[in-house]
């Protein structure tokens, strides 16, 4: 905290003059400290919290390359190189888990990314008051916990009393109840559909706010020129929200490999493991369940390195193509 980025950037410049950049930097900092000590005091508990609960665990990542023993601790355990990664890549579990994660994530993004955008565009077209009421309704499911969402899913899919089976039977679409939660082919659809139900309104908010920032005189001008509402949508509205869409896409792609494991874990049943076992649930079972801490850490690290590189790659592509980027 004592070093500002300005200092480190200038640190290698020759210090010929009396006031070197380093000294100037320190002086600015000292002045700022005298002026703002109350603000720095506020920051202290925050920084301590981040160090203890975010940065200390990051140093724990080293056990991915160590033969961890509880007795010797994280720093004392012996190094073992890439042993755990070799074990992961040669394990028979690796390919299915990797693909399950990727497929679930990509399918989920394919459906749950565009739908909030469409919803926002639709809501933007109608009377403000009605649109506000609709938004309120769409956001309610966001405040339903993930346990309850999966609970509703299980209850609705129940073969005896679940409303889905009841409805399908009433409509004569099926004769026998389907045990949705126990069958692998229904795992991904039910994951995605329940996810959209829970988050579509919430995810739409950011696009709605971007849409509300568009200058209304543009629409008026277009209208006078005889452009239909649909044409205005294509020529004005969509191009205006495109930057927001791209930013959201970058952020989402950085999370491709980290599917919502809390929900996946809740939805897993022993009979659907062939599609529902993903990297993070595997980490949980190996690490917390079987206490293979070092191996599970290596699996988790593999996951977050992929995430981070995807984020960087997509960000770079987007910077080139559209000049929109995170950094």
């Amino acid at each position: 905290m004592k070093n500002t980025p300005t200092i480190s950037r200038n640190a290698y410049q020759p210090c010929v003059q009396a006031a070197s950049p380093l000294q100037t930097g320190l002086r600015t900092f000292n002045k700022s400290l005298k002026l703002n000590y109350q603000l720095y005091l506020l920051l202290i508990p925050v920084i301590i919290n981040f160090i203890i609960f975010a940065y200390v665990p990051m140093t724990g990542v080293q056990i991915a390359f160590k033969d961890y023993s509880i007795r010797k601790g994280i720093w004392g355990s012996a190094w073992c190189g890439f042993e755990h990664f070799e074990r992961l890549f040669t394990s028979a579990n690796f390919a299915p888990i990797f693909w399950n994660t990727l497929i679930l994530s990509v399918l989920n993004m394919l459906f749950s990314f565009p739908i909030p955008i469409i919803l926002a565009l639709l809501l933007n077209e109608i009377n403000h008051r009605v649109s506000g009421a609709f938004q309120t309704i769409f956001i309610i499911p966001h405040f339903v916990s993930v346990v309850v969402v999966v609970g509703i899913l299980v209850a609705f899919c129940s073969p005896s009393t679940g409303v889905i089976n009841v409805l399908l039977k009433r409509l004569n679409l099926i004769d026998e109840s389907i045990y949705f939660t126990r069958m692998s082919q229904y795992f991904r659809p039910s994951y995605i559909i329940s996810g959209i139900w829970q988050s579509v309104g919430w995810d739409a908010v950011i696009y709605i706010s971007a849409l509300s920032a568009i200058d209304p005189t543009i629409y008026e001008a277009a209208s006078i020129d005889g452009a239909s509402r649909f044409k205005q949508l294509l020529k004005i509205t969509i191009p205006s929200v495109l930057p927001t869409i791209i930013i959201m896409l970058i952020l989402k792609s950085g999370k491709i490999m980290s599917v919502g494991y809390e929900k996946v874990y809740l939805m897993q049943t022993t009979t659907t493991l062939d599609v529902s076992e993903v990297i993070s649930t595997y980490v949980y079972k190996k690490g917390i369940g079987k206490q293979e801490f070092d191996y599970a850490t290596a699996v988790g690290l593999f996951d977050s390195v992929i995430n981070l590189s995807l984020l960087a790659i997509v960000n770079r592509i987007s910077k080139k193509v559209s000049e929109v980027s995170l950094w």
Partner: protein
Amino acid sequence: MNARIKRKLNSDTFYITIVYILLIFAVTLCLYPLIYVVSASVSDPKELMLGNVLLLPKGLTLRAYQSILNYENILIGYRNTVFYTCVATPYNLLLTIFAAYPLSRKNLSGRNLVTFLITFTMFFSGGMIPKYLNMVNLHLINNPLVMIIPSAVNASYFIIMRNYFTHSVSEELIESACVEGASQWQTLFQVVLPVSRPVLGVITLYYLSDHWSSYFSAMMYLKDNDLMPLQIFLRRILILQSMDGMSEGNVMEDQLLYEVLKYAVIVASTLPMTIAYLFVRKSFKKGIMIGSLKG
């Protein structure tokens, strides 16, 4: 010319009709599960078993809600969740303010570094196992503090609040407080926070709902039944479909009761957050829209 305008109006009417049809369809899909759950929770379990409840309740009864009151685990869960939520939320809010306000001041040297340290955690973390081992080292396993102290500041909420302070609190207001001799703490608590109610309301709601809904950290870090939050018991009842501690003796009766009880616990556990949301709905728009614009 006239014909052209007419054609345009016609196509616009058609277009808006389609928009409304799609939206009403979407609202129906969104509301149906919610309405069904409420209806089922007050229906006669026998009607439910026969598949007669499709939208509205059949054979009104509040038996399920009465049996919740006798179900010890749910009461324990409720008590713990209320406790964790009520203690952790003010703590989170305070620390988020402590991070967001100083880092929104442009003359604070070192602010880029600290901001980077906070936002970096959004993209990279030690992962599940190092975090767990860290909790072991800190003796926080099976300790109720584990539900409160860690992750005091959520990085995205921090960004929302910091952006609100930068863009929506006028610089003149802060400067004039300074000129009048207010210390920086006084400025924050007596000048800045009172005009930041929308964002404070929204962020409070976010933290409330996060604590209310969280189950995974309890599953990882807690062991005693007495410490478990509501969501853990909900998982047992709704997903693992176990009913230990609520049997009334008769297997048939229990099975019948379970059918409505599950819907009743869903309602009882979800209602508080829904009400909280409807309560701060108005400040919602102001709060997050401004905050998220430059997110």
